[in-house]
């Protein structure tokens, strides 16, 4: 009973911290709310007119929404990149970062679910996909699997984060017997969400571009680059704006791990490209469309090459110890990796999968204004969720804001705007 009351207090206090902040904090929140509002207006338009207001059509039936979804599943999965060394090797410097990784995963998952929701034609029938209430075609449909693992992963991360913060708030040490198995469970879960998402595409024999055995490994490799890239920048911002101490050592270690996964990712991409282009079967057309253009249509070509070049440059920057430990080159590397993977696992994955279409037609797709506005709104929701969580979590992690110290700390300005 007492715990329940304390938990109630915890919730109220958390909400209290979230609503109080510096002017910069309010400006940032206001900016996000503005984007969310614009996205909402665009989405209402889409609901009224149907998905006709997107540029998707029968030929290219998935586009920008599903591309962002796929990329963000990778970001969510990347949390384990930090959990593995922290808990398995008991490597202290990363440990406090883990909770940030988990919060990033939660925000990414919120965005993932948002992108799926705006993509479906009948959001009023969302309950059809809910287990027990609806009729989930499990285990046949990979989308049914995805719904299950994404929600479980969201629940798991949400629970671990809440529990750890609650412990910090009540100034008790967390029960290791409870946390460790859950954290260990989150490792295979993270691998599974991205594997299942890869299988979603992978299992379609109709789309040779996706129907490749190394798609899931490629998904994982690229996720372990892009997720930490966001975190590395974030950690530096947090170090500057809060009292959270994150050691250089931790950042450089993550950067080093990223160099390996980036190298592996490039290798897998090269292996795929070689197989398709050298053997030159009829399946080559999709890679051609992506890399060189087909029959005069080359919308994707500059993006595809930018992705490859960015990825390669970032790989070199992270591989060489001197550039890895230099803040300027490190941050350039992070931005390049982010851009590279965003292209590769977003539009660079979805569009050539569907172009040319099943009957050989080339339908050139670029997202419509509605699609971009709605997507910006969903990203803003993700950033808002992350900012609010961070706002409450940082003082709790620092022990500044606890049950006994109460609301004193809340009045002090905390984390400012976070850009990732």
């Amino acid at each position, binding site marked *: 009973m007492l715990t329940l009351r304390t938990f109630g207090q915890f919730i109220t206090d958390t909400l209290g911290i979230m609503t109080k902040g510096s002017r910069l904090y309010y400006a940032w929140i206001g900016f996000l709310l503005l984007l969310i509002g614009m996205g909402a207006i665009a989405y*209402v338009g889409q*609901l*009224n*007119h*149907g*998905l*006709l*207001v*997107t540029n*998707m*059509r*029968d*030929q290219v*039936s*998935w586009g920008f929404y599903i591309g962002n979804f796929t990329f963000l599943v990778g970001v969510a999965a990347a949390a384990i990149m930090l959990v593995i060394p922290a808990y398995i090797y008991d490597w202290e410097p990363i440990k406090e970062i883990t909770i940030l990784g988990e919060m990033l995963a939660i925000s990414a998952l919120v965005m993932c679910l948002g992108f*799926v929701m705006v*993509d*479906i*034609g*009948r*959001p*009023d*029938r*969302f309950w*059809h*996909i809910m287990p027990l209430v*609806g*009729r*989930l*075609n499990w285990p*046949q*449909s*990979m*989308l*049914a699997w995805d*719904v299950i693992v994404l929600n479980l992963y969201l629940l798991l991360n949400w629970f671990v984060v809440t529990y750890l913060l609650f412990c910090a708030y009540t100034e008790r040490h967390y029960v290791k017997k409870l946390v460790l198995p859950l954290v260990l469970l989150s490792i295979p879960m993270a691998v599974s969400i991205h594997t299942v998402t890869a299988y*979603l*595409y992978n*299992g*379609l*024999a*109709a*789309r040779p571009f996706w129907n490749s055995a190394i798609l899931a490994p490629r998904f994982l490799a690229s996720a372990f680059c892009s997720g930490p890239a966001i975190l590395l920048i974030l950690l530096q911002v947090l170090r500057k704006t809060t009292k959270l101490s994150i050691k250089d050592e931790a950042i450089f270690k993550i950067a080093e791990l990223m160099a390996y996964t980036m190298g592996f990712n490039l290798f897998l991409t090269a292996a795929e490209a070689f197989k398709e282009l050298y053997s030159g079967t*009829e399946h080559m*057309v999709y890679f051609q469309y992506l890399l060189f253009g087909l029959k005069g249509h080359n919308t994707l070509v500059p993006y595809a090459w930018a992705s490859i070049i960015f990825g390669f440059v970032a790989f070199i920057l992270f591989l060489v110890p001197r550039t890895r430990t230099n803040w300027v080159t490190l941050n350039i590397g992070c931005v390049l990796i982010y851009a590279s993977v965003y292209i590769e696992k977003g539009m660079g994955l979805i569009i050539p*999968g*569907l172009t*040319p*279409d*099943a*009957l*050989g*037609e080339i339908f050139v797709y670029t997202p419509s204004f509605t699609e971009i506005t709605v997507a910006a709104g969903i990203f803003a929701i993700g950033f808002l969720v992350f900012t609010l969580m961070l706002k409450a979590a940082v003082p709790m992690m620092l022990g500044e804001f606890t049950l006994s110290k109460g609301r004193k700390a809340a009045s002090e300005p905390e984390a400012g705007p976070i850009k990732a």
Partner: protein
Amino acid sequence: MTDRKPTCSPEGCDSRSGSGGNRREFLGTAVAAVAMALTGCGKLSKEEFLQHNFQELSKDEVRSVIARLEKEYKAKYGKDVKVATTPPLPGVIFGYALDLSRCIGCRRCVHACVKENNQSRDPEVQWIRVLELDKEEGVNLQHAEQYYNPEEVPREGHFYMPVQCQQCKKPPCVKVCPVGATWREKDGITVVDYNWCIGCRYCMAACPYGARHFNWGEPHLTADEVNPDTHYFGNRPRPKGVVEKCTFCIQRTRKGLYPACVEICPTGSRKFGNLLDKTSEIRYILENKRVFKLKEELNTQPNFFYFYGV
């Protein structure tokens, strides 16, 4: 494809709220209201919102669903639209064969199909796509042209290949649907429950034949254009945001009629029949002609065959 604003008036709202007021009913109404807000259009009734997958409905529920649909169509089009639920005929598996040596690419089948099956006219949804192929290249889809528009067909050096749902024995679209809104019936026809489909379009990504089509906007069909003789799984008017496909004219073939495309074809290229009937024309073709299946290597095992009759 023009973007015509769908009619969406507040008068269209179904405001039957549970005045009897048990809690479940209230909850249903409340959830339906939220869903109405979600669809941005107040045309969703509570009954429609709460309707379950067709395969799970009792006979009584089916009757009330059909009554509701017929009432809705009457209100919308001002004429009686009959929605049948005719089950598969026993001992029948439908098969289709298309004679590539006869087809001249006139697209009469395309338009007869649209007319018969109540597809949206604007934007026009077509379940049959006719490909113009080079004789030199053979069946190579990367050389296919769907938008051919010469003065006269057939064009020199070309042949024509209409593609529609191949009614696969192992349909990838059915496998991937996350909510079981599409399935293969006993007579071999893959159907869609338009009232259960969530519009995720996974089936469209999975279909190797481009046979599945989505209602990107509100389907536009005038009262004059409506074919009132419909089937629940077939040509009844569809809502916005769901997937549809060729059903071998389920509303006709389950009554022993030919599909509209077979009937209209001026060259007799289209053959249709019962694969289980040894004396049928379709069996004769399969046993005596040079037959192939489109994308056979994918092992979808179509019951739609292409052949060279002459």
